[in-house]
């Protein structure tokens, strides 16, 4: 007789998968700072990271190993997907600790799962509900490796957008814990036509000399797409050829889809990718029905896994969960110092991926405005004079990186941070004065279209760390 559960949860509540076409998912790893090379790249290590190996044909865990080799591509050069596990946790009474449930805790026949995924990028643009691409597994409780077919009213007959697989992992005597796995799609591009269309709707003439894959020496074959799924014919949708310029209902900036410049704006090529996000639901249909859900998302692979951006989803969620304010006692001095160091480390890791000279708005050769930068955006959005952000002479990438590394090094001495005044506040993102544009983080835009800031909570951590009158090394002595 199993004890009756009081509550269940799916953890983590949000899991992010990464696309990849290899049948072998990426092994688990940690990213750590090497104390002997504190300013170097973070090290990828699987020494203490457990990888759960699954036989998809049976749905059973075949092994759980530590220290497996971590390669981001398989031997055939295919990217290994990141396929997260969602765990079923529960507790039997209000005073119990939450625990990862096993088959001994739950009658597996009573456990039912459902996955609902969506890719609504085209719908976000066109506003046509028929452009929504949705996949629904319906309720199930077997252990099959279930394909998630994205369906859309504007797809060609019989066509679907593959959005990955879901599987209820079969608990065994050896590996009794209850898990669910989402394996994302391959990371392919799907289209509306096998041939390249120009912005005016006519087809791109072939140049057979340049394009040996040319079909019939008449039209240029579109090498980007894996399959044509979208019906762009008279009875279909408007995604291929959809055009937008700018406007308050659009994203900031607008026109962020594959296409080409046309007479009235940016013309969509009708591409679709196999990214998606959605909800995993579980129901325990016992005497009393218990339910829980978790969110998943599928994004592109991490091509710089040894560097972290200055502001991440983690920072957003932390702020949502804990608020922006920090009270005395929430963190120790050492923790605040470490948090500050981590932000600065991420700053120089971010700089490592930037072309600071171009992003500052420097002239490159004879060209004064070479790329899409905040400088161009300041002019485009507000008619501010086109003017580089920092003095042009001081933005060499290695120098800027070295400067931030020296700040990081100085912080590791234990002295409180001293630079809070140059960290941009959340309400200064539109400050286009010379001083305002030079605040940190510099040269980058946020999703709101204006200058990037740290989250308020990130900034508050630095401010709190600045309040000390003692060195952290002194206190440890």
């Amino acid at each position, binding site marked *: 007789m199993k004890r009756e559960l009081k509550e269940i949860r799916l953890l983590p509540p949000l899991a992010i998968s990464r696309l990849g076409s290899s049948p072998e998912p990426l092994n688990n790893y940690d990213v750590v700072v090497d104390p002997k090379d*504190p*300013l170097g790249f973070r090290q990828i290590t699987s020494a203490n990271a457990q990888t759960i190996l699954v036989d998809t044909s049976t749905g059973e865990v075949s092994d759980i190993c530590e220290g497996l080799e971590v390669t981001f591509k398989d031997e055939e050069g295919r990217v290994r997907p990141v396929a997260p596990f969602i765990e079923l946790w529960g507790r039997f009474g209000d005073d119990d600790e939450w625990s990862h449930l096993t088959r001994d805790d739950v009658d597996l026949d009573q456990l039912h799962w459902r996955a609902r995924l969506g890719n609504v990028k085209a719908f976000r643009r066109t506003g046509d509900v028929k452009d929504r691409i949705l996949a629904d597994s319906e309720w199930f409780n077997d252990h099959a490796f279930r394909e998630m077919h994205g369906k859309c009213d504007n797809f060609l007959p019989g066509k679907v957008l593959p959005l990955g697989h879901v599987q209820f992992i079969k608990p065994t005597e050896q590996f009794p814990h209850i898990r669910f796995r989402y394996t994302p799609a391959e990371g392919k591009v799907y289209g509306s036509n096998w041939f390249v269309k120009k912005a005016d709707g006519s087809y791109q003439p072939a140049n057979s000399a340049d394009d040996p894959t040319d079909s019939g020496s008449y039209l240029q074959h579109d090498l980007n797409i894996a399959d044509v799924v979208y019906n762009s014919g008279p009875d279909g949708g408007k995604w291929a050829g959809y055009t937008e310029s700018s406007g308050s209902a659009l994203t900031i900036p607008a026109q962020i889809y594959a296409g080409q410049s046309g007479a009235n704006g940016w013309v969509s090529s009708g591409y679709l990718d196999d990214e998606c996000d959605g909800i995993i639901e579980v129901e325990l249909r016992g005497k009393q029905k218990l339910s829980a859900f978790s969110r998943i998302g599928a994004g592109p692979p991490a091509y710089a896994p040894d560097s972290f951006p200055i502001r991440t989803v983690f920072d957003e969620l932390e702020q949502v969960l804990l608020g922006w304010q920090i009270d005395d006692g929430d963190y120790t001095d050492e923790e605040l110092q470490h948090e500050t160091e981590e932000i600065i480390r991420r700053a120089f890791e971010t700089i490592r991926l930037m072309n600071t000279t171009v992003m500052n708005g420097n002239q490159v050769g004879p060209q004064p405005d070479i790329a899409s930068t905040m400088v161009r955006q300041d002019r485009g959005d507000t008619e501010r004079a086109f003017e580089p952000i920092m003095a042009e002479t001081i933005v*060499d990438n*290695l120098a800027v990186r*070295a400067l931030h590394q020296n700040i990081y090094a100085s912080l*590791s001495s234990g002295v409180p941070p001293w630079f809070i005044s*140059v960290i941009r506040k959340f309400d200064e993102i539109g400050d286009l004065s010379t001083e305002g544009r030079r605040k940190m983080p510099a040269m980058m835009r946020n999703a709101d279209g204006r200058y990037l800031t740290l989250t308020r909570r990130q900034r508050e951590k630095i*401010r709190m760390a600045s309040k000390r009158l003692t*060195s952290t*090394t002194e206190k440890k002595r």
Partner: protein
Amino acid sequence: MRSRFARHLQWTKRELPREGVPKSARAMLASFGDVAAPAPEEQRAISPEFNGHQYAIFLLHVAAEVEHALMAEYLFAAYTLGGPQVDGKHVDVVRQWQEVILGIAKEEMGHLCSVQNVLRLISGPISFDRDDYPFGAEFYPFSFTLEKLTLDSLAKYVVAEAPLDWSGAEAEEIRKRANESAGSDVNQVATLYHLMIETINNVLLVHDDAFRADTVSMQASWDEWGRGYTHGQRGNETHAAPAATPELIIEVVDSRAAAVDLLQRIAEQGEATDKGGETSHFKRFLNIYRAWSAIAKKDPKFDPSRPVVTNPIVEDSLPEKQARIDASSTATNTITDPTTFYWAHLLNVRYRMLLTGLMHVFHVAGSLASTTKPSARGQLITLIFSEMYKVRALCGLLVTMPVHRGGDPSKHSAGPPFQMPYTLDIPERESDRWRWHRDLLFAARDLLDELAVREKDSPRLAYVLSMRDADTNTMAIIEAMIAKLDKVSAEVTA
């Protein structure tokens, strides 16, 4: 060495005897073209060995030295504030004082660079020199002393930055305290600036053709040096600075009017003139003095400073014997703790790298062609800022470390020695200047290697390793500069 300055320093004498002006000097004043000689009562005495132009340069050198000394003294004082002994109820106010004094030190750095700009404008040699211990009181506001912040030392800073007409009971009390603390009358920086402004503004002393607008490209600009550190109110998180907080003054000058205006603004930032007001160094120091006095009346044991020894120095070799701590302002205290010894030498090397970088950067022009892209000057500025950060961190470390072997830093702690290098001269050839930086970096690396061993079980090890890593990256930049300059040189030769 400083006696070479002192013999020309008549400005410290407030009432100059007009009749004492040598005829040769008067003759010099009248020697500019067809400008009529001023009446004797309008003349100012200057050394018979100077013409007006040389006298202006001389005064600017004195000003640079004073700004440099004050910057070091204020930095030292600021870092002595704090420590575990500060009662929790006073932590916020003490931290505010520290922020205020560090801000003033930063502004002195701005003054120092601005004075170099004026030197460049009138074709004078750049000067980042200053006296070492002891003392040069003839032209310093007071004897150069690195000491922990006390009401006595604070009184000296208040008086040094005070306007010439500061008077009243409070002024008398603080002046008396300052003079007793300094062992002689504290001079006011304002005197020097007023004299400098008067001299440079005098067409008879410094002729129009002395102002070289074509030196602008060799000067420090706010764009390159100010970064985000200008108006304090943007970042006045602790409300330590007054509402209308001051700017970091770094300004390019291209004419007599611009130079005079710049020097006036610097003077105003120091004194409490109408324009300077609450934001002046004088007022800010005075506010701390008043607040400290008020707390000390209620709590006589109040001591917001760490027990940092006065004028800490480090010798080339570790002394076998250690002297007793000498608290007098004219004494030096030799660091004898072996680990602190290496950290203190590291501070001196980094301080030298900072000063050498400053010397170098004023010798590298931002030509029109190179101002649209990263330049050698930009690299140097980055190097200088990096060294500033290191100096800051090292100051923070040294005030927590023992001064004597086996000593207890909670009783007597070391501090940054800020000992001047034997020379600030830099080589003639540009590539050799970068090799100069490389040499200093090698010296720093040797010290860091030693510290990596000594600190292997200390929480300070993280800093040693980080700094060594950062230096490796800086070395790569320097090597690239040397290779590039050598290549250009080889092409020119070919």
